[in-house]
């Protein structure tokens, strides 16, 4: 559902006057980004990315008026991707939230287009994968869970917010593979997709699935309340507080990491000049203390890549995921 903006004339005037005042002091004032498409329903990671960034852009006066957040769910971002490619390729007021999940879809050929269809603006931070079980689950450690999976792949039902072959699933499969599950038995693992990390965790609390693989940011509340037990976080190093106690998979002898960065793209026909100024706007946002604070509250590690460096990184990510998907058997 689209959410419309309401801009009172007075506010519009005030902010454009402010813009005039600043124009003298700042180089090429950024173009007004006025819409952010979250290619999912409210509540998930992409929606959060759009809403928090949209709100900060407004509060830091990096844009005129409000940034309208449009939820456009469907096909794990495919609907939004084809909409922007088809109808709004040159709209320089528009940003679209994406993440490693979107790269996985591109790598597996599930979007109508490839990395060259869009212009990649930048990433602002990264979320990290977690493997969770219920607090009264028989699995106390990652070793126990993975041993059970290797011994009898059909005995453990795992779930997450992505579909079979999506990023949450791939991370779980990478762990199973690292634990020694032979490639031809990977297809026997059970995977259930829910509408998001939160619903997956509550279904696990109800005893319908055994373990969840998802992003930390989406379910941080359940970790703090003690309803779930974290068997592993998929980062290279232990996380900063308040999650410093959580064990990494690496420290338990499984060389598996799985981040989920948060970033934005815009249409492929946006001019170089507009593109550069949008990248600048996002970089200014990234540099602010407010963003660092919002990121920390939501379990994101602030991390910046922008412009051409980000475009290269996107292509590299897609190649990586494609290689992993091929290795695991998601794509032939």
């Amino acid at each position, binding site marked *: *559902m*689209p*959410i*419309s*903006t*309401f*801009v009172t004339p007075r*506010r519009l005037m005030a902010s454009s006057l402010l813009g005039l005042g600043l124009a003298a002091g700042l180089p090429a004032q950024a173009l007004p980004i006025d819409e952010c498409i979250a290619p999912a*329903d*409210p*509540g998930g990671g992409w*929606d*959060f990315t759009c*809403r*928090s960034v*949209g*709100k900060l852009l*407004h509060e830091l006066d990096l844009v005129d008026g*409000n940034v*309208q957040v449009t*939820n*456009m*769910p*469907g*096909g*794990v971002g*495919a*609907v939004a991707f*084809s*909409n922007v490619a*088809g109808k709004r390729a040159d709209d320089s007021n528009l940003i679209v939230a994406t993440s490693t999940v979107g790269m996985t*879809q591109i790598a597996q050929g*599930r979007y109508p287009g490839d990395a060259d269809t869009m212009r990649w603006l930048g990433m602002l931070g990264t979320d990290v994968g977690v493997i969770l079980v219920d607090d009264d689950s028989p699995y106390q450690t990652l070793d126990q869970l993975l041993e059970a999976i290797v011994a009898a792949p*059909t005995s453990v*039902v795992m779930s997450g917010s992505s*579909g*079979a072959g999506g990023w949450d699933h791939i991370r779980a499969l990478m762990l199973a593979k690292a634990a020694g599950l032979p490639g031809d038995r990977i297809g026997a693992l*059970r*995977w*259930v*997709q*829910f509408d*998001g990390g*939160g*619903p997956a965790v*509550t*279904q696990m609390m*109800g*005893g*319908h*699935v055994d373990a969840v693989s998802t992003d930390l940011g989406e379910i*941080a*509340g*359940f970790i*703090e*309340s003690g*309803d779930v037990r974290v068997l592993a976080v998929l980062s290279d190093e232990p996380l900063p507080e308040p999650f410093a106690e959580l064990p990494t998979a690496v420290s338990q002898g499984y060389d598996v990491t799985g981040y989920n960065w948060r970033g934005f793209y815009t249409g492929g026909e946006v001019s170089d000049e507009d593109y550069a100024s949008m990248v600048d706007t996002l970089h200014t946002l990234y540099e602010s203390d407010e963003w660092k604070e*919002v990121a920390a*509250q*939501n379990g994101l590690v602030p991390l910046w890549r922008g412009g051409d460096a980000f475009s290269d990184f996107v292509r590299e990510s897609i190649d990586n995921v494609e290689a992993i998907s091929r290795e695991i058997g998601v794509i032939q």
Partner: protein
Amino acid sequence: MDILDFLVHGFAVALQPEHLLLALIGCTVGTLVGALPGLGPVNGVALMIPLAFNFGLAPTAALILLVSVYYGCMYGGRISSIVLNIPGDEPAMMTTLDGYPMARAGRGGEALGLSAVASFAGATIATIGLTLFAPLLVKVAIRFGPAEYFALFMLAFATIGGVTSGSFTKSFIAACLGLLLGTVGIDPVSSVARYTFGWYELYDGIDYLVALIGLFAISECLLFLERDQRQDAAPVRLGSAAPGMRRSLDCASSIGRGSLIGFIAGVLPGAGASLGSFLSYSLEKRRWGAEGDFGRGDPRGVAAPEAGNNAAAGGALIPMLSLGIPGSGTTAILLALLLSMNITPGPLLFEQQPDMVWGLVAALFIGNVMLLVLNIPLVGLFAKVLQAPSWFLMPMVVLVAFVGIYSLNNSPFDLYMMLAFGVLGYVLRKLEIPTVPVVLGLLLGGQMEFNLRRALSITGGDWSILWSSGISIGIYAFAATLLCAGLIYALLVKRRLG
């Protein structure tokens, strides 16, 4: 502190003049938006969010405003159902079945008054439930896994046969048609486009609002145009709301049952207000059987679904606040609002933000009373609207619906689609095939399919999971009983008619 202390504290928050004023604004705007066909609670809440930001409201104040709009919409949706036979939003669909016949018989005021009291009772019961049992209910709700949800949807479709006055066969045909239409679009599990035939506009599926407005509003206008216009029917007289308020005492048991069923449906994420009002209506109809006059203006057919949909709206707040899972489109928007204010609903919300939560609960109680009081003068206002000549009234309804649908996606394609559904609705009504099951199939089909596929992913394709828990067996048994009762009842009626 126990619940009572929290609640007293909550009232102290909600009774601040600023919050009272916001609740009043929210209730009024909500009722009006809800009454306009094509604009529902999702629009009402969505358009208030930027307003809340622009005034720089504190989280509690903003939430009070938005929840008042939400409750107001649930009240308002019934008005056009009763007065025009066009539901203001999808949960109010069931109210057309008996509300409109009452209005045609000159008892519109009574229906409006009765439904206001039923809405009030439903919402109040749900709010009390939210206050007392939220943590307990969450524990019950998480027992519902994919297989149990699938059973719940089967229950809804098993009871569909007896809902409208038409034949069993035709009701089930309509439901299957709705379910089939619901599969159009990109399949969320496999990203495969189904029945889109290369039309990009269909990728996101058929919007149920587009279908609802087409099937009800446009087809109503087409039917209207059949009449000879020189002898325009005498304007419908609404009558006073007072008898309806008294009537609600007679319907107290219907209201009670409707509230309970609606509340349960609301607490289960993904079931929502439409299922709540639908089940309330169909079970109430089964309860009375041949004694009732359902479909021809039975007051209980107005009381039960209205209590049900308002109770479901209240119930849906429970999973949203305590698990962070939205149970409906509207609670999804409320959730988004909370998130953008850096409040993450979840198991710790009641402990971390007691001011906010209990202020909200108190605001719900206050908003309810306000809505009931507001509704008495509003009946008079809507009576005035109805006195307008039909050459003004009908174009107004069509155009409000038109612009409302256009504003969903700014897409003319939705408008063509709405006209196509209008023609479909007209033909179905001529064939005496009910349109309610079509919308219901479209609304619930996606979740029904998704849960079926989830259940089968858990077992790796073994269908026995569908009937392997006590909850799902119980639901199927209940559904089978109702289905048999309905079939036998239909046979008896047929025999009696000769």
